[in-house]
């Protein structure tokens, strides 16, 4: 296709004129400023301070517990177990409607393993959190444990761990066998 061209006008070979350069500079700084703020918006929206009860709490020193002990922490609604392997923290809240279930008891005729019963609607849980019977829809969660620098046992009930999670008395997280209740010494 023929295009009429005025050959007396020389088109600039480089497209980067001073005007365009300054234009890029101007728009570039606008983009940087706006983009810099915009990338921070998601962080702005995420709350940094929440006025909520803390999810971590201490439950005494490891030496306060004897091997084979099952101690209910009523105020925080967890059971602390000290097994020969280490510590475990199990939620005391029935997954049905949130009652506190009763402590674990020895095997019975109906349930031939160590189990706990909720007094409200009769849910039955095994020591590893499984639902053995009743209306509870989900197994009980185990919570993460750690030792604070001053040697206290600390539970974090916002972090759920598998039932094979143990914390040794010297603060190591290890994986052990499924708890079957044989660790509890019933008096």
């Amino acid at each position, binding site marked *: 296709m023929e295009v009429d061209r005025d050959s007396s006008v020389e088109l600039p070979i480089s497209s980067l004129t001073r005007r365009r350069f300054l234009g890029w500079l101007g728009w570039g700084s606008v983009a940087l400023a706006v983009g810099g703020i915009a990338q921070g918006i*998601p962080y702005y*929206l*995420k*709350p940094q301070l*929440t*006025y*909520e009860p803390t*999810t971590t709490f201490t439950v005494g020193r490891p030496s306060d517990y004897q091997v084979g002990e099952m101690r209910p922490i009523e105020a925080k609604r967890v059971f602390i177990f000290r097994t020969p392997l280490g510590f475990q923290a199990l939620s005391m809240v029935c997954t049905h409607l949130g009652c506190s279930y009763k402590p674990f008891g020895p095997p019975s005729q109906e349930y031939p393993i160590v189990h706990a019963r909720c007094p409200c609607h009769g849910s039955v849980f095994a020591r590893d959190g499984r639902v053995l019977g009743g209306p509870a829809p989900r197994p009980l969660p185990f919570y993460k444990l750690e030792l604070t620098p001053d040697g206290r046992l600390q539970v974090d009930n*916002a972090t759920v761990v598998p039932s094979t999670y143990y914390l040794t008395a010297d603060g190591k997280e290890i994986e052990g066998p499924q708890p079957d209740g044989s660790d509890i010494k019933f008096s």
Partner: protein
Amino acid sequence: MMDKLLLILQGIRRSRVWLSIFRREGLPQTEADRLAMNRRNFFVHILPAKIHKESARLSYNWLWMGVISTWLFVILLLTGVFLMFYYVPSVERAYDSIREIVNAVPLGRWMRNMHKWSAELMIFAVFFHMVRVFFTGSYQKPREFNWVIGVLLLVITVLFAFSGYILPWDQLGYYAAKIASNIADGTPFIGPYVKQILLGGTDLGQPSLLRWYVIHVFVLPMSLIFLVALHFWRIRKDEYSKPYWTEERKRR
């Protein structure tokens, strides 16, 4: 008596204030003048000077569901402003402030019920507007863009209903928010972050109520007004939803 009234009216139309606002003295006399006024006048320029015969048929326009949803939104804006004078977005006072509006404020029950029923009707109207547009094929080329805006408007309307449902901070609203935030929590990868943004914390509380309040009374109305302006601009350009089969083919 009548003559005097007409004289007064004429006096008003010739007054400096009238002329300054409308720039003309009389009402349009000819058909062409009427059409021209409709285009030029700021207050009525959004209204059609004429519509296609087909779109006046009830079976085509379905009682103008889009217009109805617009007017419901106007009612919601007005009654919403009145409710904002008394409503306090605090977990301690939200429910009681609504009880105060209903039981103690003159006309408060009326305002609240207008707001509530208009909101429910608006969902209904927006939905049937969408169904109408679908069945009459009005989403077709070249009007796809307006369909997309319409879908966004539907989303905003539903968000309006959801956020408004939370604000009384009663059992219904509280657990609606709880369930919704747990659904958001289930999103892969970003779920927990989205949940925190929606709630302003890890659990439902004062920050959540404040966030949804601000979304309900500022973010959503602004977005809706902006998108409705776009929506109307497109409708006006497309000659007020003239049935697509009567449209000239040249633009396709």
